[in-house]
């Protein structure tokens, strides 16, 4: 177990007053709270920050911590003195370090059911939320997924034990969408005593696709075409999530022109989204002498001002 310097975690001086500690906590919480942060380590960072704040905001806990801090240094191995005893119980999921100082996870107000012996209590297990990346193709039909995650685990005195690794085979229903949460009842952390297990929440994240962009249940694919295809019109074989289709491109299709392919988007609860094909004109990377001559004759013969928009202003 490593020593945690709570002052360092909050970025405050060891003699900081409560107001400074509170301000530091709130500033860091805004930055790293998993509900608002985009930082990929936000959850772990916020856990440290919340733990540091829990220890330092309470004058009695802080006094105990300051006493112990004389023996430890941040990041170094640490064991509390053998005769160390704390009178606290807390209701949050904090580190072993925190628990070694302030005691183990205690009964939560409003949730606990004491048995006759006071040290034994029953507590509902923790709810776990985990992100589940889904490929667009996987939303087309019910999809079997194997997911693995870690569950925090406590003994009946509330001491934290090693995490349990759990693997589940889950059927993800057709038509799930970005940001959706799926609750799996009873698949979260095990309860303490006779407490029920917590739940597992799967937070659906659609993996970015190399070809298709997602907007709600509609998809967009960019269709590169040559200048002559753009002018003369053409038939293009366009990939969709379920096989390719032939799309007729009318003559004089500009870059940005959008064609709707009905029902080839993502499935939803009420039907299916559409696929939009967006034209993008591309030119050959290089031109040989002969090609250049063709372009030159075009430029001489065709009257066209591509910047006519500019002269209007």
């Amino acid at each position, binding site marked *: 177990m490593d020593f945690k310097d709570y002052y360092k975690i909050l970025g405050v001086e060891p003699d900081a007053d409560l107001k400074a500690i509170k301000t530091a906590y709130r500033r860091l919480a805004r930055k790293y709270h998993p509900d608002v942060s985009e930082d990929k380590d936000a959850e772990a960072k916020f856990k440290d920050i919340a733990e540091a704040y829990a220890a330092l905001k309470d004058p009695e806990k802080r006094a105990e911590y300051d006493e112990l801090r004389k023996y430890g240094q941040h990041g170094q191995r640490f064991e509390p003195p053998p005769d160390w005893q704390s009178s606290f119980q807390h209701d949050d999921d904090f580190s072993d370090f925190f628990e070694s100082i302030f005691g183990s996870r205690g009964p939560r107000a409003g949730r606990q059911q004491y048995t006759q012996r006071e040290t034994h209590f029953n507590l509902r297990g923790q709810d776990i939320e985990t992100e589940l990346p889904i490929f667009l193709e996987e939303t087309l039909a019910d999809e079997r997924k194997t997911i693995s995650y870690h569950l925090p685990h406590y003994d009946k005195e509330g001491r934290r034990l090693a995490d349990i690794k759990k693997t*589940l085979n889950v059927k993800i229903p057709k038509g799930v969408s970005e940001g959706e949460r*799926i609750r799996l009842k009873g698949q979260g952390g095990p309860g303490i005593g006779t407490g029920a297990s917590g739940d597992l929440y799967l937070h659906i994240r659609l993996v970015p696709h190399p070809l298709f962009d997602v907007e709600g249940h509609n998809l967009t694919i960019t269709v590169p075409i040559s200048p002559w295809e753009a002018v003369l019109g053409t038939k293009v074989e366009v990939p969709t999530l379920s096989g390719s289709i032939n799309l007729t491109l009318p003559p004089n299709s500009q*870059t940005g022109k959008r064609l709707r392919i009905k029902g080839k988007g993502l499935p939803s609860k009420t039907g299916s989204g559409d696929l939009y094909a967006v034209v993008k004109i591309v030119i050959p990377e290089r031109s040989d002498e002969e090609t250049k001559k063709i372009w030159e004759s075009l430029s001489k013969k065709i009257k066209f001002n591509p910047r006519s928009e500019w002269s209007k202003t």
Partner: protein
Amino acid sequence: MIEASVTVKFSLDEVCEIAELPTEVLITIVEEGVLEPSGESPEEWRFDSTMLSIAKRAARLHRDFEIEWTGIPFYLDMIEELEKLRAENRTLRQRLNRFLLK
């Protein structure tokens, strides 16, 4: 094989119990339009898993930021807006990159 169901619905009481949220707070969150359960009256309201998840967020915001309950609907709304804009931004950036040369 566990069937992950998105159609399971929760009542007002169930959401409050699971999310550890006072009933009147959840009612305000619905009345202010942050969550839109099906059903007319509070007794008939049915919430889906995603709404339940947002209700849990309400409890977290109250605990971790020490936000008064009356302010919670506003913050939930702002976070939802933030997530929407971030997602939109990601999509637009991805779209834009298809037209810009690397």
